[in-house]
């Protein structure tokens, strides 16, 4: 294997080469240590109700589990990022299918799962042509397989649910994994994860402090315009500051591009959040599950990322490209070479 590729896929020793990666990992570890201490001190001072305290401990505990699972693959290498996102996509799809009833359509479910796996393969291979082709081909396959049962009743619903699932968990999250083909993938992914996670926190905090009229009371009654604007400002500021370091000496590192990137992350993240609220409300379910104690299901945690990943990918891709200096077609090249041996 090409040493450049091996270094990107499995090069653990370079994990902390980028200052942003090191800084964020240290900050995250520190937060995980300080947070329970702060809760304990507040509780001792009698400022927390026992119920709130338990809820906070639960949330911290879940973050303590989640953080290594999110940051671990990024530190270990690009191969683990791609596998990790594949696992995340499949688990999210599982939750979505059980939520919407799509899981009862076994053949369509199978097509979506195979599609998600193929997306991962295209990413691993660094074969953008196939990755791009999978979106229309996936839709075509889902539409065709949906016809097999000869049941036109409910066809549009089944088709729409499966296509949406593939678009969100296959293609959408696939764009997150595709960043792993960039030489600078660690810093970019860390920036994305931090920005998306803090976007939620900023929205919650500024919603509590500023408040104001409700954003869309029928979809999600707790969100306020103050929260949305606060998140927009704070996340954009954060992305500008971190982005300067992440994209140092690159086209994306210019202030106006970072400003646009921050706005895109915040807006797409908030829309992703609202999208899941709307889906849950439409179906009439309050909780997706308790995969993550204190957070609900996986989807509750990763809803923002679904829309952020493709948005950011294509902005960065348009301005400076993703993974352009990395070798492409890792496996398919070898396959093409093998076939060229057989045929004259």
């Amino acid at each position, binding site marked *: 294997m090409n040493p450049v590729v091996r270094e990107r896929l499995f090069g653990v020793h370079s994990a902390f080469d980028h200052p942003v990666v090191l800084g964020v990992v240290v900050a995250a570890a520190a937060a995980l240590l300080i947070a329970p201490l702060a809760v304990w001190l507040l509780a001792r001072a009698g400022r927390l109700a026992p119920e709130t305290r338990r809820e906070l401990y639960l949330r911290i505990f879940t973050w303590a589990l989640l953080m290594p699972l999110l940051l671990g693959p990024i530190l270990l290498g690009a191969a683990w990022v791609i596998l990790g996102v594949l696992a995340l996509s499949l688990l999210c799809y*599982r939750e979505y299918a*059980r939520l919407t*009833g799509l899981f009862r359509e076994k053949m369509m479910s199978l097509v979506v799962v195979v599609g998600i796996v193929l997306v991962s393969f295209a990413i691993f291979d660094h074969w953008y042509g196939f990755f791009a082709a999978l979106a229309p081909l996936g839709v075509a396959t889902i539409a065709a397989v949906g016809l097999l049962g000869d049941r036109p009743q409910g066809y549009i619903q089944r088709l729409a649910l499966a296509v949406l699932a593939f678009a969100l968990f296959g293609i959408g999250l696939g764009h997150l994994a595709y960043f792993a083909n960039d030489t600078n993938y660690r810093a970019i992914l860390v920036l994305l994860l931090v920005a998306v996670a803090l976007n939620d926190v900023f929205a919650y905090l500024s919603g509590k402090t500023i408040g104001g009229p409700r954003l869309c009371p029928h979809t999600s009654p707790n969100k306020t315009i103050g929260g949305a604007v606060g998140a927009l400002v704070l996340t954009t500021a954060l992305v500008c500051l971190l982005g300067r370091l992440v994209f140092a000496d690159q086209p994306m590192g210019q202030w106006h591009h970072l400003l646009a990137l921050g706005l895109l992350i915040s807006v797409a993240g908030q829309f992703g959040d609202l999208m899941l609220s709307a889906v849950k409300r439409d179906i009439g*379910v309050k909780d997706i*599950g308790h995969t993550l104690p204190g957070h609900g299901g996986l989807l509750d945690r990763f809803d923002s990322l679904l829309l952020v990943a493709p948005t950011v990918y294509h902005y960065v891709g348009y301005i400076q490209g993703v993974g352009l200096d990395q070798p492409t077609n890792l496996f398919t090249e070898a396959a093409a070479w093998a076939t060229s041996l057989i045929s004259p």
Partner: protein
Amino acid sequence: MVDFRLEPAKDLGLTHRQRTLSLNREAGLIETGLHMGWWGFMRTYLRLYHRMRVEGRSHLPAKPPFVLIANHASHLDALAMAAPLPWRHRDCIFPLAAGDVFFETPVLATFAMACINALPVWRNNCGRHALGELRKRLVEQPCIYILFPEGRRSEDGSLLEFKAGLGMMVAETGVPVVPCWLGGAHEAWARDAIVPRPRKIVMRIGEPLDFAGIRNRREGWSKIADRARAAVVALAGDQSEGASRITGR
């Protein structure tokens, strides 16, 4: 066939343990694959090792829901009854299994859920509620229940009295009840044997019984139990080994 229902899984949000015990459990993609594989494997095993023969396959209803009942004298019984069903029905086969045997330990319960797709029935306190849930599921969803109205495995292979549970599930519903007779399963794997012996198994499938016209109350249940038992006895025939024991009831 039913239209698409925009409706979450009935077991949404349950923990793994709760899910294994739930009567409303719905299989996901992995479990469906396991069910398909398991019943395919059982079919091959029964054919090769027990040289299993099935008579009266044409009596099987074309579509679920329906209930398969038979005499019960061996752990092989439920496996033998499910194996000849067509593969497109394999994912909706639900053997009703004794909770105290199959669902006490988490490992066995997980196996019973993932491979056999068994639903637990608690014999000591199988309340009206649990039977009501099973009845509701049978009416609303395409299910195939495999159950043994005797309520336990017979020790010597003779046919015991049928219990009222079957009637409580199907009275007034019009869900067909298919009586079956299993010959040789007791000899192949008796209650005290550790491993199955390569004895021949014969399964006879009878004509479906319809209990739509029978009232869902105590008299109706015993009437259903009697009719179902008579149908199973009739299938046993004269040549059967157990026949003398049955007719001498």
